[in-house]
């Protein structure tokens, strides 16, 4: 976790609040692409059950990888899911 002061602060923000937010968005967003299964519950139940795992993977990744790459990867994953959510909600409104 070496680096300049700014890097350290960014790493802290990324691994702390941002990863938590990313987890929430990825969890909610993945309910839109996961298969529903016969009982029509898998798509939204499995992400909730796996929530701690999603968070742990993102957290350790954000702490261990190069800061720039980790930020980009987490940002893309979050953005894709956020876009999915936005599209779904807009469709629902129409």
């Amino acid at each position, binding site marked *: 976790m070496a680096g300049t002061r700014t890097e350290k602060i960014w790493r802290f923000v990324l691994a702390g609040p941002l990863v938590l937010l990313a987890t*929430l968005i990825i969890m*909610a967003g993945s309910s839109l692409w996961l298969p529903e299964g016969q009982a029509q*519950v*898998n798509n939204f*139940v499995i*992400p*909730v*059950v796996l929530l*701690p795992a999603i968070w742990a993977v993102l957290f350790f990744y954000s702490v261990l990888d190069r800061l720039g790459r980790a930020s980009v990867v987490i940002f893309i994953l979050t953005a894709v899911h956020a876009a999915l959510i936005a599209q779904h*909600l807009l469709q629902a409104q129409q």
Partner: protein
Amino acid sequence: MLKLQQKTTQTMLALHGWGAVIFGLLLYWVILTGTIAVFADDINDWASPLPAAITETFPLGTDAMLRKAAADVAPEYLDELIVFATAGGRIRAFFHTHAEAEDGEHPEEKGVLFVFDPESGDILQRFEGTQSEIEAQSHYGKLGHFLVEWHVQLHVPSPWGLMLTGILGLSLLVACVSGFAMHRHLIKDAFLRRRRGGDVLSHKDAHVMASTWNLPFAFILAFTGSFYSLAGAFAIPAIAMVAFGGDQEKLIETVQGLPPAEDPRPAEMANIDTMLEDVRAAGHRTRFLTVDHWGRQDARISVFPWQAEGELLPKGYAFDAQTGENLGEKPALGQSPSLGSDLVALMGPLHFGNFAGWLSKTVWFALGFAGAYVCISGLTLWVKRREQQKTWQYLLRATLWSAWGLPLALVAAAAAYLLQQAGVLAGAVEPLMFKAFGLCLALSGILAGIVRRVTGVRRILVISLGLGLCALVALRLLLGGPGWVSAATGGLTAVVVLDVALLLGGAWLLRREWRKTLALPEEPLIDTGDMEVNTP
């Protein structure tokens, strides 16, 4: 165990250490109260037993009790009913509906709570009002509830308390992964416990050995625990918003199934005793049951039993409310079996360890105890490594305060419960428990702050806890609780077992402290050569 780059190991060590410094003490609170809460039901049975053990949780005559109660409540409260056992095997039936709370922001349950004597079928207590009003008046089961609330949300209002415990669960998950990753000789060191007068090495072995053996379960409990906290705090609302466009009703319909079309015409309810007998015949012991729309054409009845021997996942049965016909097993979620439903169902037994009665509860208690030990030994190790830095001595004092002061405060809360039950203390039971708990915690905190030597802090707190555990048993007997002979002949297992456990625990603590007093202050230092501390 893993071959990591030095930089990665350092990161892991930093996460492990600083995570512990920030979250360790609160995590210990959650783990310790959770460990004791494994026996919450039995603690309730111990504190408020009936004169003799009940033969069945829901005996023949449950149907009559519920009918009598249903005739005695306002029709709107027949909307929903939940029935389960509480302290000593008394039956608790809550007829209620969902009303808008006074703040107008969240729905609140409102209705009538009945407490029955299971043998005679008599109504022991009847409370009416909103759920919080009822909870403020009721007494039975409050001691266990007090413990569970510490564990679930540290008595912080929802959803903040859940978020807090959720984050604590995640921090435990990080501690498990980082600890596993940075410890190089997990299996080789599994039996290595060098005692050397309480130096860094002794503390390191104590921490590493306990966490090695406890690792799989610490991981399972952290995962399932953070699932429970975070799902309730924000995951379920978030999913409801996204997958169902904020339509909570649609979510409930998907999970529980479409309710039958509204049909408020009155209809005679089938006999619930027959349904309970049906579940019993399938080898199950009923845990709780729910009834929707009592006395109407569209009534629904579900019975949820404990796991039968050898089963891990809990079950639920649906019954036809008019014919009493068993409609078969219903999945935890959704209308047909699914992976998601099974995963959710699995979380309960894995977290609570309540799937095989006393056996599984004892194992889970021991595992939780090991987890609490790992917390305290880790924090002590952190301070030992920084013995020259005065500031960290405050953390050591805070650790000792938590380690012994918290259980001591819980003993005080239990004493307050017993005193209120016996009529010695007047007032509602929960505030009294809080007062006793807070007072005891504050006193032990002051002690931990002012006693000059750190060993003195430990000694005073450990001796107080040892005496407190024994005194709790004496208090229960003095206040007219059943004696050991009548408890044993009456089959009150919880009373006998917990009394013995409290006395043994107290005696063990006192003996341990006594031996420490006798022991020489420092054992000879030995060169450890190649067996030095191997973490950077």
